[in-house]
């Protein structure tokens, strides 16, 4: 493959010519995207097709690149969370929490146990929501719409929990540096309990619908496989790497937010194909439910935020009646709180892989440089490698099970 700037006909011209001379076959070029229903979001795959079979392909990124990393360089730290919301919008709370933890690491803030447990619950809820979408959309892309709409209402229930915690649903912008903006109301716990009670039978039903379905198995087994070595060399993480048989999970390797307190398993697959990715995600939902259960049961009493007046907004009544609080309030809202010179990397286990934040500060009010390690961007690099020699339908299933989300791909 030559220059990316060439039009597709010229880019693949050599291959097309060679095949025509060899056996007279006519190859065609298919633009799968940028506005194709299977590219959940916007990105373009230029595929060289021999009938229904994919010979070669090229992915084009950048259709919704919003320059988040550059924008972040001009924003005070607390204003960067809304940017993280818009990366993997299927599990924004994980992105939010990851960002807060990065900033807290840079500032060396000790976080109360209660906040850590609350964060674990929120992140696991987000993981469930993310996996619900990914797995049920794999069903849609293979032709079974019912599972999707059936489990979708439980994502709705999870969104209601977010709503109760922070007031927002999709782009949550949840929390603060040091904790949460307010303590959780009893309703939050009620809703989580209800979810823990109602969701498992529904998820079992969903698994029964697809996991042993002959057509679904035929459609996904050995489709878009990737070997463990290749997956590692591409930089795969998360469920997609675990499906290839590597038990790497950030929650275990470098525990954050007290993940070491909880008992849970890391499901792994064997062949790294679409079916294994589906099964790993299914199993992870059960593990997440287990973690939430434990976190609720062990939830300690205590403050819902760390005692960091420099970074955590004071209560509103203090702002009106207390000069120190007013000064803090003003400085925080105006983003005039400097962060010491430091360089940190913090990673969380995102909905679809290791979501890393690499932060360099120069002692000013904004990051000097911020890099998001976005798993989707990495998965998409391997996509062409994974679908070569497969059918068009396989490419769709593979793309779907890699869970490439355009917002995170382009940032």
């Amino acid at each position, binding site marked *: 493959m030559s220059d990316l700037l060439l039009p597709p006909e010229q880019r693949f011209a050599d291959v097309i010519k060679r095949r025509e001379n060899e056996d007279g076959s006519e190859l065609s070029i298919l633009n799968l995207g940028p506005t194709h229903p*299977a590219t959940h979001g916007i990105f373009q795959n230029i595929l060289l097709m021999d009938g229904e079979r994919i010979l070669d392909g090229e992915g084009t990124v950048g259709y919704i690149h919003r320059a988040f990393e550059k924008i972040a360089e001009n924003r005070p730290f607390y204003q960067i969370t809304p940017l993280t919301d818009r990366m993997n919008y299927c599990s924004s709370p994980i992105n939010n929490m990851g960002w807060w933890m990065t900033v807290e690491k840079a500032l060396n803030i000790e976080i109360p146990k209660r906040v850590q447990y609350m964060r674990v619950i929120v992140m696991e809820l987000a993981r469930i929501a993310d996996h619900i979408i990914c797995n049920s959309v794999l*069903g849609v892309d*293979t032709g079974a719409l019912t599972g999707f*709409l*059936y489990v979708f209402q439980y994502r709705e229930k999870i969104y209601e929990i977010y709503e109760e915690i922070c007031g927002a649903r999709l782009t949550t912008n949840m929390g603060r540096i040091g904790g949460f903006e307010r303590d959780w109301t009893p309703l939050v716990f009620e809703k989580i309990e209800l979810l823990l009670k109602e969701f498992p039978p529904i998820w079992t039903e969903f698994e029964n619908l697809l996991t042993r379905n002959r*057509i679904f198995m035929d459609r996904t087994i050995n489709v878009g496989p990737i070997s463990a070595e290749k997956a590692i060399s591409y930089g795969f993480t998360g469920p997609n790497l675990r499906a290839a048989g590597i038990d790497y999970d950030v929650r275990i390797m470098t525990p954050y937010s007290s993940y070491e307190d909880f008992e849970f398993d890391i499901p792994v697959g064997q062949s790294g194909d679409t079916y294994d990715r589906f099964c790993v995600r299914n199993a992870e939902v059960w593990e997440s439910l287990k973690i939430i259960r434990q976190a609720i049961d062990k939830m300690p009493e205590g403050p819902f935020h760390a005692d960091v007046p420099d970074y955590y907004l004071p209560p509103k009544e203090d702002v009106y009646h207390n000069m120190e609080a007013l000064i803090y309030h003003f400085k925080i809202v105006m983003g005039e709180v400097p962060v010491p010179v430091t360089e940190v990397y913090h990673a969380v286990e995102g909905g679809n892989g290791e979501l890393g934040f690499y932060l360099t500060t120069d002692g000013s009010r904004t990051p000097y440089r911020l890099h998001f390690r976005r798993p989707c961007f990495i998965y998409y690099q391997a996509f062409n490698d994974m679908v070569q020699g497969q059918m*068009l339908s396989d490419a769709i299933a593979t793309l779907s099970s890699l869970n490439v989300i355009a917002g995170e791909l382009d940032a």
Partner: protein
Amino acid sequence: METAIIIEKSIFIFTIFAITMLAAMYSTWAERKVAAWLQDRVGPNRAGTFGLLQPLADGLKLFSKEEFLPNTPNKFLFVVGPAVSMSVALMTSAVIPWGDRLIIGGREVILQATDVDVAILYVFGVLSIGVYGIMIGGWASNNKFSLMSAMRAASQMISYEIAMGLSLIALLMMEGSLSLADISASQAGMNWNVFYQPLGFIIFLVCSFAETNRTPFDLAECEAELIGGYHTEYSSMRMGFYLFAEYASMFISSTILAVLYFGGYNYPGMEWAIENWGVNPANIIGIIVLFTKICAFIFFFMWVRWTIPRFRYDQLMRLGWQGLIPLAIANVVITGLVMVRHEIAAALGF
């Protein structure tokens, strides 16, 4: 006498046409309701009670939308495509025996537009034209996705027609007639063919799914890969015709399944009903029974669609050529052996 027949048939043809259209229209409504029910939703409920006016609203919307014509060198074919699909879907209903007979004003009215001797061949012939609508539309759209869908549809239809025809041969060997009226009449009582030809029925059922392009065989319009398949470029009522044709052919397929394998208008105790209640009530019940069977099959089509995923192109071909066709041939052989079992026994000296 001649005029009487012409008037009678005209009225009947008009009624059948109206019923087929109505059934297709309300199949779209039923599809949404069934899907909603299976997916734990409400479904259409704004237009009329239970959303019963939804198909009318849809039709009105489709008619009033802009007719978009893509930049294609085959504008004529682009217009012809949906028309072929639609007319073919409506033509099949001519040979279906909707009931046995009614006596109106002393005249015996046969509840069939025409009783052709080769009704089954006619049905097959017309159904195979159906793929031309898709082929023409897909080709004329000048769109790679549409063309791919047209190719898929054509190869799928051709492959599954063979298995379908072979599964029917076993049935015809038993029946000894190609007329749908004879086949219906021979299944009086509970002598339904499905009990004698279970394997043939299953093959025929699977092939019906393929012929009507329904999930799990809806490769021609799988929205995840080919956007809308052959009707990607279509808009307004032209697209409506394609969708409508799909529902009409689903209705016809259900009818054929009911007539060939589930006894048509026959129901247990029909003889008794004719004797005790008279010809008309008994046959009206027969019509209702036939429509109940049709509705059951339509529901089955929808149930399957909203439950299982679709095949991949090569898997579909493998199932057709390596699964269904050998099975259908085996079915023919088994049926033949069973039919001549006495002769074989005699020849072997039992």
